[in-house]
């Protein structure tokens, strides 16, 4: 364990491959892990306060609620240990916008609009965005206005002075549910911060002509560990922005360590054994593989099945619901219909799931056979 800790001291975990990372965090617990990180830095210099501005666009507050569910570390621990000043967060702060005869009133101790203005002016903060940004109607952004300004404008101002930008949740990352196909989607024209669905040129920053790197932490909601560990890495200087980003993020701006390109929820699904044996539930309430009930876990690049949710208590497929691939840039459209199996859409290379699982079983048998032969040979 001691060696592992020492090793971690000198390793940037966002640069780790997923297996090493999982092993490290699994062995130590995330709190110890973060502590270990901090020790190294603090020994050199006292960790300076980091200001965080957390903006809420078109959202359901689910990602903030999820963040408050963080276990290791919990939110209070994380803020303290990382010396984070959560300077602006609409759901938690004391302040609110106050206007008297149209003019900003009181001070930043009570007025959130003045507070935000001052914080942006001072600069030197990390910007977190939760929720998407409407560009509609007609490019005006007026489908969301706060303090009589469009959210589009507020985001632009906050993004310009930010040291780093993190988009939390499916909506902020890619538009999420607000960008789902519908007959009003064209009018609302919802955007993620840096992306619009899979389009890396369709984000709101691009629309505003702001060229800044953005880290996406998608999910509906985002897992609190993904958020806190990423913020931790940024705050502790474990990744340099923008130099390190091409290495640690995938093509959709997600940290590969949490959203591994070569790993899906399916691989460690608690029901995986049933899949391998070709046993599927066709009614809810059973315990077998949910593929035929529409599970999209084979397309969801996330570590949910290892990390699990809410203190590692459970996860969607464990509780009998299909994975809806909420971490993917084209969620929810790619997962709809949610309860219909996906093979008709030509996914899984167009192969039939029954065939695949037979192949999987066959491959396992062959591997076992090889081992058996080796054992016999005394290798």
């Amino acid at each position, binding site marked *: 364990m001691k060696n592992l800790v020492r090793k971690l001291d000198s390793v940037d975990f966002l640069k780790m491959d997923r297996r090493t990372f999982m092993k490290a965090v699994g062995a130590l617990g995330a709190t110890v892990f973060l502590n270990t990180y901090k020790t190294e830095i603090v020994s050199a210099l006292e960790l300076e306060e980091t200001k965080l501005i957390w903006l*809420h666009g078109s959202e359901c*507050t689910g990602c903030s609620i999820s963040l*408050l569910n963080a276990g290791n570390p919990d*939110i209070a621990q994380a803020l303290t240990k990382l010396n984070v000043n959560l300077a602006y967060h609409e759901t938690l702060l004391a302040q609110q916008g106050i206007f008297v005869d*149209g003019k900003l009133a009181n001070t930043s*101790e009570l007025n959130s609009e003045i507070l935000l203005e001052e914080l942006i002016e001072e600069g030197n903060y990390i910007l977190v965005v939760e929720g998407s940004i409407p560009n509609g109607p007609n490019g005006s952004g007026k489908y969301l206005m706060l303090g009589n300004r469009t959210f589009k404008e507020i985001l632009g101002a906050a993004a310009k002075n930010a040291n780093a930008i993190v988009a939390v949740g499916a909506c902020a990352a890619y538009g999420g549910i607000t960008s789902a196909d519908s007959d*009003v989607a064209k009018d609302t024209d919802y955007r993620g911060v840096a992306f619009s669905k899979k389009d890396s040129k369709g984000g709101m920053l691009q629309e505003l002509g702001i060229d800044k790197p953005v880290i996406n932490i998608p999910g509906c909601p985002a897992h609190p560990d993904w958020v806190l560990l990423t913020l931790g890495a940024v705050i502790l200087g474990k990744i340099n922005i923008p130099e390190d980003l091409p290495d640690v993020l995938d093509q959709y701006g997600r940290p590969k360590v949490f959203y591994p390109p070569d790993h899906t929820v399916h691989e460690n699904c608690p029901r995986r054994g049933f899949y391998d044996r070709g046993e599927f539930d066709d009614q809810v309430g059973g315990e077998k593989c949910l593929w035929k009930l529409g599970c999209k876990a084979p397309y969801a690049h996330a570590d949910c099945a290892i990390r699990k949710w809410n*203190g590692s*208590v459970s996860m969607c497929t464990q*509780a009998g619901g299909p994975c809806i691939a909420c971490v993917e840039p084209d969620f929810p459209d790619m997962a709809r219909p949610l309860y219909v199996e996906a093979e008709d859409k030509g996914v899984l290379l167009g192969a039939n799931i029954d065939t695949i699982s037979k192949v999987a079983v066959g491959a396992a048998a062959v591997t076992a056979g090889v081992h058996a032969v080796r054992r016999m040979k005394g290798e």
Partner: protein
Amino acid sequence: MVNVTVDPLTRIEGHLRVSTEVNADGVITDAQSSSVIFRGFERILQNQDPRDAGLLTQRICGVCPISHCLTATNALDQLYGVEDQVPKDALVMRNILQGLNFIASHATNIYVLWGPDLANPDYKKVLATLGDTGDAVWKELAGRFAPIGYKIDGVAVPAGTSNMAAIPAKKTLHEAIALIGGRMPGPVTPYPGGYTYKANVGDVVKLSSYYLKVMDFVSNYTLKVPFDTWIENTYQASSPQKAVNFVVEHLQSLVDKSLASNDFSREAGWGDAELFAAFGSELVGETLLGLPASLKLDNIGGYKDPSKICFVSYGGFYGAKDGYDSASPEGERVLTSGVVGGNLEYQKFDPSKITESVAHAFYDDSKGDLHPSKGETIPFTDPEKISYTGGSESRYTWDKAPRYDGIPGEVGPLARMLAAKEPLVTGVAQALNEKEYSAANVYTRVLARIQETAVVAYNLLNWVTNDYDPTGRISVPIDLSAAKNSQGMGLWEAPRGALGHWVSCDGSGKVANYQAVVPTTWNVSPRDAAGVPGPLEQALIGSKINAVQNILGVDYTNPLGIFHTGRSYDPCISCAVHTTDLTGKNAPVTLRIV
């Protein structure tokens, strides 16, 4: 006249703007509440598999996703014609899931959203005029309820102990939800015909231990009377009068003990509920208990004209009186449905009496007021038409104006406790009404939320330990073709109030129309076609804007009366502006009213 606008009203879910006109005495004479966001939500369900509604509508709101999921599931049970076949244990599981969410959501409002206003700097100033007693009360208010990162006059105020302790308590509740729901937010287990997860004996034991952990929080922070004693003497009291007497006697004994020593700490028996119940109200605190002062929260956020307001509950939690029945919204639900008039007169709830007006919202309204099942949502797409500064005659919100029998309705814990005739809340409301206060006000709204948390917690234990049978059946199969040309209505209660989903399918079994009417739409609704303001607007008009009835004079820059009143409804704007349904191209739907 001075315009005082709060925008954004933070510490709520979503984005709300409140604009008021205030006279020289600091009394609000006009108000508009504006939901400032348009998302276009249920339109994404159109032409889709109706079963998606459970998981997708819960994305309307991350604070109460379970309510949307269950309301949708109720509508889908009906759509597939299995509403009378859902197995008992599935209904119990749904109750447990919803109950845990109620407690977590209420605790969040009480401690993290509404509560921090008790540490407003003006209370410090007011209480400072009351000598040692005032200082002692301020110490408790700020010490328990201050938000994080808070400063008064440049001096940092540590985050309140109750506020901070509530966050891990909520986390514990969410772990319990995840255990039987997969994760929270975003649980996956409700499904038409039943439930996807069959909790085993081990899960039941874990649920019980989560429950005990949460009750530790309650007994350490919220309520210093033993929980069972409280329930026996309030929720289970034989009359409203008896419930009120019990509480007043309990508070009186605390006051008698503490007034001399000025010790209002938890150690001296003052839980957060006791502290609020005594010091929050003029009637209870000053008139009945003889306290030297109170926050007078029963003087603000009330209704001036009882004929223009009612309290609506669709009924929440499947009941067990004559066996569990998922089919009936009226009958045997644990929190019964009902409509209570402005003067506390009771009526039976009739869902066909709900209409929605968009006369003051940014939607086309050429067809006048419509029942939700026939509602239209055609948003303005001209940016010039979206303005929040045009006053009460203008269009100023994305929120529609639901009305019950033509009258604005308040929904939420207070409406539910009144409709269910919960003795304590009913008794306090009646007492206030008799003394010329509005029965509904900031004090009763928060008191009802506290009491409902206790009521739900009491029932929750029963569902977990008595009603749920781990060997029982958890779902019945549904026939997907039954959705063809079928309709469903789901009526349910979210923590914030009455929630209804309406679904209808076409001949191919795809969604032709999906409509949701949600709690905050009722509470923060704008004026209707007749110009009658919505509940929050009515509650603001006539209220004083500053602390303790403007005792320090008028200060337009710290309109605490608006903060308190707005947050007392626990608004959820993501829910309120969800928007729905057809663009007029689909035929109106015939509802099956059960």
